[in-house]
């Protein structure tokens, strides 16, 4: 891809981001931040690609750390966001306990 194309993608994505995120209410700003934490875990892809390109033990070492960092972001970010959003409930709770049926990995505390 040419640099111009990439910068065009960057700018358009930023505008989409502004549009969508400015509609998110204050109530959800903490889950939003931890959710975007998870999304910038996308740097994991960078680690995966780079480790295939480089040679040398030290390069491999720092990229394994980078992959671990990215994975922490992805796994930790999505899980902690889910944990928080699970707590947000509406006023007239239809059933007294856990009204969510189909949530993926259910972890509770």
């Amino acid at each position, binding site marked *: 891809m040419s640099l111009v194309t990439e910068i065009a993608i960057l700018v358009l*994505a930023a505008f989409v981001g502004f549009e969508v995120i400015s509609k998110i209410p*204050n109530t959800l700003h903490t889950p939003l931040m931890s959710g*975007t934490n998870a999304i910038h875990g996308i740097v994991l892809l960078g680690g995966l690609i780079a480790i295939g390109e480089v040679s040398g033990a030290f390069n491999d070492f720092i990229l394994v750390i980078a992959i671990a960092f990215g994975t922490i972001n992805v796994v930790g970010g999505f899980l902690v966001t889910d944990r928080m959003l699970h707590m947000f409930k509406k006023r007239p709770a239809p059933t007294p306990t856990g009204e969510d049926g189909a949530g993926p990995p259910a972890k509770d505390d």
Partner: protein
Amino acid sequence: MVTGIFLRDPTFLDYGYIVAFSLFIIGLHFMTSPSTARRGNWVAAVGMAIAVVDTLLRPGIHKWGLIVVGLAIGTAIGIPAARSVKMTAMPQMVALFNGVGGGAVALISWAEYRHFGNSLGSKHLIPTLFAAIIGSISFWGSNIAFGKLQEILPGRPIMLPGRLQSIANALLLLVAVVLAVIIAAGTHSEGLFILILVAAAVLGNAIVLPIGGADMPVVISLLNAFTGLSAAAAGIALDNMAMIVAGAIVGASGSILTNLMAEAMNRSIPAIVAGGFGGGGTVAATAEGDEDRTVRSTTADDVAIQLSYANHVVIVPGYGMAVAQAQHAVRELTRELEKKGVDVAFAIHPVAGRMPGHMNVLLAEADVPYDQLKEMDDINPQFPQTDVALVIGANDVTNPAAREQADSPIYGMPILDVDKAHSVIVLKRSMNTGFAGIDNPLFYKENTSMLFGDAKESIQHVTEEVKNF
């Protein structure tokens, strides 16, 4: 790996990235309402899973052993951290997650430069250098923010005297940029690259150390934006569409939040980064002299009677409530009041807590339904019809000086107009001034009474009295 040849075709795989980032955007769209937000988070997670699998299918991916080790370490750290973190500690957690994201970018840039050197070509070299600088600032800045929030480091500003700090920061940035320009101009030197990382690391420390506890919401948002930006830059360096889009979205999100937080504090972002405010010191308490102002102290019994007779009660929680771990006691009190037919709402100031939206999460954890939490602009017109405003551990965000005294340091800051309620009850440990060290005229108003003591004990006491009433 039984994958047909077309599955490993890079062009085909790019379509996978398009699916992935579309899911990120759809997921964020679901986050515009609390009722769909949880689903949105999982939609985004599916997008991430697709992006990762898509990347692993690409030609050129090998060293599977190392990849598995990295993924395993990250998972082993990430899952327990996400499961065990307390909701009060969420700001630290987010700071730490920002940090590892920025750190990953800095490390990837470093490894790429070590391997390819200047043969990267300026199209890839310049974004690599940029990503290294921003990533390193974000990593170190976030670690300092974590240290302050976790109280490993003192919350007060740590800085060089006077304008020296801003000059030092500007110099550090200049060093990093000049070194980057030297490398980009054709000088190959890994030593210079490391120096860039170090200068940016020191800069990250120097930016966050001078920032006081109360300004933390702004800093965390700013670091969030930095990490996003660094991921996008790394995406350009690696020609990776998914990283560019995801990084840009996170950068946009961080910027929006930074701006919102700064507005809610009536402060400019440069002024916050220049430091000093959040820990007091620069601000003199006003009008401490005239002692004709009296404070009315009240008792839990009186508060219980007032609350029980009220029709509309608005609770204004501040960080003090979280510190006292009083949110569950507050929830219990609202239940008792609702049994008596009292209408209870919560007024949440945008900077209540240590990060954007922190107070909402703490109250959600205590089972307060989200439709009972009102944003500042929605609740302010309702204060004149409010019988009792109950202020728990909040101070500066209720200070009418922000509206009335043009010489006050917080003049112009948007506040919750609790003083317009018929009656105001302030729960406070003592008459000490708030974080900003500013006197609060609210405490001396005729319709205000103070209930001194630990917030949790006071609330429990009031709840008992309400039950017996």
